[in-house]
């Protein structure tokens, strides 16, 4: 639906783009660990939101909708590549790690690059659970709605993701040497 001829609606979308650009770039970066991928994701997200802007603009939280689109782009991409299968199923053999040791491992992270590296080792859906719950600040129910699963699945996935994160942190021998993209 073409709304480009409507100056008011067009201006609203332009302002929305400014409003959400940093949010989308940061979310994309946390989901991918790569600045260029984050930029591509943010652009694709805005393209998709633009197509539905007449509907999105009437939503209570258009920015939340855009974040949802971005998260789903990452998840669909992961599925398309078949890199991870049934990531929310307890089949990954990750050793049970108690919450106490997971919290301790996170507390002891000195270089946040270690955390980013460990996060990148998680399957996309587990990463999404953590990003939605602990960065976006969404509730279990809201996260479940975005991910299209039950609240219980989100809760258990969060625990498993934390356990895998702890394992990754324990084995991050040289995360500082990871290739990092800081320039677009």
């Amino acid at each position, binding site marked *: *639906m*073409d*709304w*480009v001829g409507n100056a008011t609606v*067009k*201006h609203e*979308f*332009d*302002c*929305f*783009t*400014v*409003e959400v*650009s*940093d*949010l*989308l*770039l*940061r979310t994309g*970066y*946390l989901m991918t660990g790569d*600045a260029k991928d*984050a*930029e591509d994701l943010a*652009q694709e997200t*805005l*393209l998709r*939101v*633009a*197509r539905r*802007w007449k509907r999105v603009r009437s939503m209570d*939280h258009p920015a939340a909708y855009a974040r949802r689109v971005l998260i789903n782009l990452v998840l669909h991409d992961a599925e398309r590549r078949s890199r991870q299968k049934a990531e929310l199923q307890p089949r990954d053999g990750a050793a049970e790690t108690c*919450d*106490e040791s*997971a*919290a301790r491992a*996170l*507390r*002891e*992270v*000195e270089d*946040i*690059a270690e*955390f*980013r590296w460990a*996060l990148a080792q998680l399957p996309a859906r587990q990463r999404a659970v*953590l*990003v939605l*719950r*602990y*960065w*976006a*600040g969404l509730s279990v129910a809201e996260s479940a709605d975005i991910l299209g699963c039950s609240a219980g699945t989100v*809760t258990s996935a*969060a*625990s498993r993701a*934390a356990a895998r994160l702890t394992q990754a942190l324990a084995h991050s021998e040289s995360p500082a040497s990871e290739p990092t993209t*800081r*320039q*677009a």
Partner: protein
Amino acid sequence: MPTEELEHQLRSAFTRAAADFQIPQQARQRLLQRDYHPGSGHRRLATGITAAAAAAAVVLGLGLSGVFGASPARGTGTIRTAAFTLVSNPDGTATLTLSPGELLDPAALQNDLAQYGIPAIVNVGSFCSSDPAPAGFSQVVSQYPAGEGSAQVGSGGGPTITIDPSAMPAGTELSLGYFQLTSGEYSGEQQADFVLIDTSSYTCTSTPPDPNSLPDGYGPDDGIGVLYGGPGPAGS
């Protein structure tokens, strides 16, 4: 369900990771210069500065103003709740104003600060600090009304501080402790304390810091303590 301690550590780590990502200015510009309008072609780079870029120019402070002045609660660059207002400034800083007499939702404020790239630990009824204090607070936080160290604000308004996340030393977070005082000389008032903490070493206490001084390890320029407002939420 992860424990509260684990959830806290996860929030803290994500806040640090997000804040650590300095968005390249060119990436932001490219994003704003794309033409997203339906029918304009997929992924077509705009041939000139689009209206989005023009709007960005407004936000980035290139001499225009007023576009977003009438924004609603969560408008462009402004998050407004009953208890606080957080404004994203064109220079990358953010200005936080606390409203007198309103109960602060610590998770909401912490999350909103994170959205603006500010790693923070916000507590209601407790306050976290490090000993020794990280250096650099005065480069990170400026205050209105201006004050040195602790300051007392009149009952007419809440404190306003401006935070520069780019000036925060690595491994630090902003700690905000908020208290509704129910006893003592300042009973009925609200107290907010701001310091930097070392994320690898800090302690938290439920005892409000002395309004006229800062915690052990902090010099007069290493934090801000503010008393403000009259009777707090629900007239407590």
